């Protein structure tokens, strides 16, 4: 099996598995009246998922280039920052502190400017502070959104 075909087969199989699970739950869970609409959806869902999987396995799925290894490598640091921010830091450290750290980290990781230059680090810190000040003014002062405080704010 070619790499391109395998790239389409894996998500195709995952979607088919989800469709089968949804169909199984729609037809077995009670009360049946609450699952009437999901049952109709699940029939179409599983039919299309089977068709999609057959096309992928047969090498007929041409739309979408799949995930390139280089892209996956590049996005991994940013993705890890996102996951830490949403699933831990926002609640543990506080929304504003964790968002500031996330902004600064993402900006620093992906900024093409050299990491050895002090001037560039100061620039990153100033831009982060200015952006987060605007966000604080908008959400905390203007819209009065109460955010989780955590250890800090």
């Amino acid at each position, binding site marked *: 099996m070619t790499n391109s075909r395998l790239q389409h087969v894996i998500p195709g199989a995952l979607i088919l598995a989800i469709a089968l699970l949804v169909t199984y739950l729609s037809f077995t869970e009670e*009360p049946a009246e609450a699952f009437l609409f999901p049952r109709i959806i699940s029939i179409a869902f599983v039919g*299309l998922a089977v068709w999609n999987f057959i096309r992928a396995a047969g090498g007929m799925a041409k739309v*979408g*280039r*799949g995930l390139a290894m280089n892209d996956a490598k590049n996005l991994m640091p940013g993705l890890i920052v996102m996951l830490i921010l*949403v699933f831990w830091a926002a609640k543990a450290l506080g929304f504003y502190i964790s968002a500031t750290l996330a*902004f600064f980290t993402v900006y620093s990781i992906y900024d093409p400017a050299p990491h050895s230059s002090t001037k560039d680090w100061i620039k990153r810190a100033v831009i982060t502070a200015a952006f987060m000040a605007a966000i604080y003014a908008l959400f905390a002062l203007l819209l009065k959104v109460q955010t989780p405080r955590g250890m800090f704010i």
Partner: protein
Amino acid sequence: MEFLSYFGGVFEPIALMLLFAGTVGGLILGATPGLSPTMAVALLIPFTFHLSPTQGLILLGAAYTSTVAGGAVSAILLKIPGAPANIATALDGNEMAKRGEGARALHLSFLASGVGGVIGVLLLIFLTPLLAQWALKFGPSHLFWIAILGVTVIGSLDSKSFVKGLLSGCIGLWLSTIGTDDIMGADRFIFVDALSGGITIIPALIGLFAIPQVLDMFAKGRVSAVIDTIDVPRYKVFDSVKELTCSLRALSIGTVIGSIIGLIPGVGGQIAGLVAYDQARNFSPQKDKFGTGHPEGVIAAESANNAMVGPSLVPLLTLSIPGSPTAAVLLGGLLIHGIFPGSDIFDKHPEVVWTFINSMLLGQILMVIFGIYTAAWAARIAKAPIPILAAGVLVLALFGSYSVGQSMGDVQIMLALGIGMYILEKFGFSAAPLVLGLILGPIAGDYFNNGSMIAAAQDGPWVYFFTGPLNIILIAMVVASIAYSFWTNMLRASFTKVPNSEAAK
């Protein structure tokens, strides 16, 4: 002429301020490569949550109008279309800019956008009440089929693969059923605690449209993307106006095509711009000049993609079927304010709807004025480095999705959907049908349940849902939308096979 009596609402200080902010902000966001109009409107929705429905819709409408037009700035000056709707604009606009006629191209683009946009909004004003009147005849079974039609049309037309488009729609419909069933009080598909309240529309919209773009920017890595804007020497606006009046053929072709395409659910501005450009070239005696910096190319493309904006809201306001992905996001904006589009929208919320539509009319004029005088400046802002854009959108997505329900569960769902959508997009799936399934799912589900109850008291579901002239017409339209997409997929596949087989020889 009922709309005239609601014009006063647009001139209230806060409404006017929001209109200005939405227009200028939309122009800048539209001009920024990598930020799509759909994402811009999705990120704005949380802010409207704290405004009155009229004010919120004015802000969203202004942003929708001007992001589409703003995309022309980067298309002309950077040769990077700010939105897919501006692809055709870049073909001639950038060539004009390279010749030192950037200001002329920008003037023509905004003036044509304004003319197309105003005619599009006038169509919205006059067609919507007519369609709403007609839609009064619809019962639950018809409205159920209309909701399904909305998903199949966008699923079929907005995706390169119709199987994946329809599958995206199905995933959206399924996601909409997660949570507690309103009638029976039963839990459906709640696998984790965060899903107990179901999937809230606004965090889902932000996740599905903003997070994939952030991840796309991450995937580029530490690239030093040096984008040089072309200098824009001054050009007299009056001369551009004169030139536009002499290019009526391109202007009318663009406006008519854009208006018609806007009325067709799911087609969107990209198709409108490209079809109008192609037809303007076919009807022009100077066909060869297209692609070399011909003003008519810019006029046709820009009048079309803005003429589409108004009509794309006609099926949205009357039948809950959005005409474009951005209109689908706007539907989410209506729903969070408790405004359910449908045949009775003009009876229940005349002030909100008419003020919103009127604001779009004024917004078109403001967009032309601001566009002409701030375009070159907007292009400079649009050169914001990718890491700042990525970090900024991430933080805005975090705060925006939290602020609606003040729930961390919403933020987690936003991120999970965003990551899932990024992966799906890499395999040819599209966000628009998924979003539409998510938005129309509860509507379709409610009509299905209501229809089932009526059917149980009458001749059964088969007779109720599948017979009667209107049901049959709607079912035929659902089948036709799928068949049309299947046919175009086959056609596309045969076109790509011919060169391959010839190359093999």
